[in-house]
């Protein structure tokens, strides 16, 4: 017999009991735990998503701040470079101006020294030439230099053209009517009168002539009004010598500056 009613009923009951027991011990528990786990995973994923979004936001913020700082840094660097360049230019300019000033001072000092040296040289040369001339003249011709100077001075006065004479007279003070005769040596009375005579001839009138020994005139004699001077002295010969010395000094200083530039 394939079908047994008792067995069928018993199996139905068994099956219903099994449904109840498995529902209680298996399905409800397992499904509950699976749902809880699913919920937990969903929650965690949601949390992770939120955290990720927050982290991304924070990252973006940090990135923005970093870019801002970088920009500011670049600006500051550019400003610093600009300031440094400006400062450098100022310092260079300052240094150059100082160098120029010092160079100027130095040149002035050199010039002063040169002028002083030339003046001394001229003075010494004049003295030397004068002494030498005096000795040569005395030794060779038995003449005094002073006499020759006076003689030549008188000759020169005699050779004055009319225009030169008028030019000389024009500068004589009309009220005081004074002229001066300076010499580097003491004139004898005879020589003074000779000079007086020839000057009065030139002027054509009586004037007050003052004779004076002037150490400034190293070796010579001169006559002067308020604004005009006729002189006969050794200094005139030395003007050329002074020019030669000046030229030699200039060339020497140029050569020195060229050497300095090459060394630098």
């Amino acid at each position: 017999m394939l079908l047994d009613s008792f067995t069928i009923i018993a199996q139905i009951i068994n099956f219903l009991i099994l449904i109840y027991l498995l529902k209680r011990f298996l399905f409800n528990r397992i499904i509950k735990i699976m749902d809880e786990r699913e919920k937990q995973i969903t929650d965690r994923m949601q949390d992770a998503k939120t955290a990720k979004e927050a982290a991304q936001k924070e990252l973006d913020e940090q990135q923005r701040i970093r870019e801002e700082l970088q920009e500011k840094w670049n600006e500051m660097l550019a400003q610093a470079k600009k300031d440094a360049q400006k400062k450098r230019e100022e310092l260079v300019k300052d240094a150059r101006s100082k160098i120029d000033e010092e160079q100027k001072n130095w040149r002035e000092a050199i010039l002063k020294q040169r002028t002083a040296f030339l003046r001394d040289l001229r003075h010494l040369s004049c003295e030397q030439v004068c002494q030498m001339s005096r000795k040569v003249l005395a030794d060779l011709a038995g003449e005094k230099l002073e006499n020759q100077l006076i003689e030549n001075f008188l000759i020169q006065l005699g050779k004055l053209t009319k225009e030169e004479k008028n030019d000389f007279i024009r500068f004589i003070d009309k009220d005081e009517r004074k002229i001066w005769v300076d010499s580097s040596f003491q004139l004898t009375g005879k020589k003074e009168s000779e000079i007086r005579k020839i000057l009065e001839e030139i002027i054509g009138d009586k004037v007050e002539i003052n004779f004076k020994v002037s150490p400034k005139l190293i070796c010579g004699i001169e006559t002067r009004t308020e604004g005009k001077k006729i002189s006969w002295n050794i200094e005139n010969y030395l003007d050329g010598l002074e020019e030669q010395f000046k030229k030699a000094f200039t060339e020497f200083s140029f050569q020195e500056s060229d050497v300095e530039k090459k060394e630098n």
Partner: protein
Amino acid sequence: MEISPDAIIFFKWNGIHLNATILFTWVVMLILILISWLATRNLTIGPKISRWQNFLEVIVGYIRQQVKEITQQNPDPFIPFLGTLFLFISVSNLLAIIPGYQAPTGSLSTTGALAICVFFAIPIFGIAKKGALAYFKHYLEPSIFMAPFNVIGDFSRTLALAVRLFGNVMSGSLIVAVLLIITPLFIPIVMQVLGLLIGQIQAYIFTVLATVYIASATRIENKPEQIEQKEGSKEDE
């Protein structure tokens, strides 16, 4: 040799008898309940779970997924019935490898009992979901003249369920028994393995068919008016 384990009677008293079918059903029930109870004693939702819990979660998860795919509804109300059906048939067939064991599903009484359960479960789920009137109305579709055929269809599919499972399991065990007589070595083992496979397939088929029947009974058909109403309510939102 007995065709059905019903014929193997261990105890008989006043029309009440204990045969192999009932006895081995109890064994199957005991195993299922014992494993369930033991595995679900210490359930955790943490990342570290026991192997038994993992094993049962896989099975229950798979059943849920299958039922959800077939019914296209929330599977949880159907799971205790359909899950029990699958597990009972599956374990009953699986234990056939144990010598001396008689699969309860090899008895037409058992498969009949299961089919009867399905037969009654369909209207119960249908009425619970749609209401009695809506449920019984489908017998009159497409026309009132089809009502007898619909009723016959319900009975015949229940019968088919019972006979299909019984036939497969019973034939599997019969084939093994016959082959044991003809070629006692190796061949019965192959057939036994095949029998195991067939047993699992039959458990799957039985459950899937039951699911399909229940799904068809519980599915709410969207009539044109209802669709319009739904669309209207969505627009209101």
